[in-house]
């Protein structure tokens, strides 16, 4: 069963060409031309990943992202043509997992999609890890806060597992970009910062500590 991508893009040429290009890579592409149609399609279908343009007529990409996040943990990749801080940061704040700046080669797009679709790998035989009221089960890929199971988006889960594997150790943004997002050297550290913010909202603000100038660490 092929991977299904919901592509929301108002520019017709991009929508068609990216759709065709992704289909060549074996993805199933469900195209939508504006935000509201995109939201309808999202609710109607079962998509493995959302590829959203930021500037869309009607409901824009950021609004759409926020609406999707109310009910779903599906990986979201944003495409921004402006590439300025405001666009990127608002997209990531709204819950996107990563972003690409247009124009992006199909190979880059596919690499990003693959990185986001990469599931956290269960580690059999690994005992549950307990950090205060936070419990991480690397075997079942389950996370509990104060005994209650919480649901994390795939990126957030991979990020938390990365922290849990190195408790109390400071992980710099480059390392996290490499291990969680599959970036070489050229990842944008804001992607990490904003995902950490989302993770904090779920596992408790002081669980992930910021080490200024270096990175983050999980408090034991």
């Amino acid at each position, binding site marked *: 069963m092929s991977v299904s991508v919901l592509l929301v893009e108002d*520019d017709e*040429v*991009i929508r068609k*060409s*990216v759709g*065709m*290009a992704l289909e*060549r890579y074996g993805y199933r592409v469900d195209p939508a031309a504006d935000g509201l149609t995109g939201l309808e399609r999202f609710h109607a279908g079962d998509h493995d990943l959302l590829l959203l343009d930021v*500037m869309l007529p009607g409901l824009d990409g950021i609004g759409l992202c926020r609406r999707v996040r109310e009910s779903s943990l599906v990986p979201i990749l944003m*495409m921004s*043509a*402006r*590439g*300025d801080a*405001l*666009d990127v940061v608002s997209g990531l704040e709204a819950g996107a997992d990563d972003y690409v*700046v*247009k*124009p*992006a*080669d*199909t190979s880059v797009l596919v690499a990003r999609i693959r990185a986001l679709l990469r599931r956290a790998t269960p580690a059999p035989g690994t005992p549950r890890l307990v950090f205060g009221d936070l419990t991480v089960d690397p075997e079942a890929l389950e996370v509990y806060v104060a005994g209650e199971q919480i649901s994390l988006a795939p990126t957030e889960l991979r990020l938390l597992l990365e922290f849990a594997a190195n408790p109390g150790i400071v992980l*710099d*943004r*480059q390392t996290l970009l490499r291990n969680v997002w599959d970036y070489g*050297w*050229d990842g944008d*550290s804001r992607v990490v910062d904003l995902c950490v913010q989302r993770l904090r909202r779920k596992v408790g603000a002081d669980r992930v500590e910021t080490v200024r100038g270096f990175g983050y660490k999980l408090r034991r």
Partner: protein
Amino acid sequence: MSRWRSLRWQIAALVAVASGVVALAVGVLVHQSTLERSLALGRDRALTALLAGPADPGPLPAELTARLGGPGTFATWYDDRDPDVPWMWAADDTGAVKIDMGGDLRNLRALDRHIVLASAGVLGLVVPLAALAAELPNRRLRRVARTARRIAEGDLEARTSAGRGGDEITGIAAAVDTMAAALHDRLRAEQRFTADVAHELRTPLMGLVTSAELLPDGEVTELVRDRVGVLRVLVENLLEISRLDAGAESADRVAVPLGGFARDCVHRTGLTAEVTVHGDPIAETDPRRLDRILANLVVNAHRHGNGPVEVRVAGTTITVRDHGPGFPEPLLAEGPQRFRTGTSERGRGHGLGLTIATGQARVIGARLSFANAPGGGAVATVRLN
């Protein structure tokens, strides 16, 4: 700014001079009028003594006899031939007296001394007070200067917040604030414009890039892809330059091991360059921007120079050298200018690469300098930190 040329000491000096002049004028006036009064009193005393009966004061001085007219007249003369022992002479045709004016002289001298002492005392009090009072406007001026410097350094949110009060310093501060606000607005407008231009250019470009990828392979497709690639690089370079011009870029620093980084960077350009690394230098810098700088220098060396291209990392200094004709004279004199390459080079590159490298170097706080090697060839040097 020299400490003694500060406004505070200028004001203090002005106050000192003004007070000094006033003290001198008052002192001279008092001295003069006191002298005249004591002379008049001395004359009266001498005449009274003369009326009471002439004594024998000794031989009459020539000046006094010269003043004496005919019978029935009298004359007085102040005798300060010995400045320490003055006399007042009075004479008529019957005789003469002289009375001692030494007491008056000593009184006058004491008065002079008191005036000088009092003036010095007042000066000693007033000058520090003036310096102290000048410190207040001074401090406000310094704050305005500090704010202006911060604005020049790119902090457009900086304001003097001089408050109210209608003096010239508040005026200057308000003018600086207005200027900063205007700059801020213009910068914001430019950034917005750049972002809009980016959107308008990149959207069709993305369609073009992905469509070109979908074309069936062939000679014509290669031509299209090549031009699309050129267009893409040009658009990205122009957008990068306008972002750099807008001055809104900031460095995202991490520790970068320079040796391996330079090798990777050269590798990513797909061009050949000999990388030599001395030691194991690590620099705190923005890898994405440093990559842009190095890649642009290496590409430029290949495009406008001849091989072999050498990249040398020594400490936090990286040099990129080629063995071509070297940088043209105008570039060495004025630095890189956009869209200006040597006329013979027209059509090869847009002269944007070095402009971007210079701009990015400024963002990461590095110094990028261009020179020609004595043995020929262009040498670009990046000094981090």
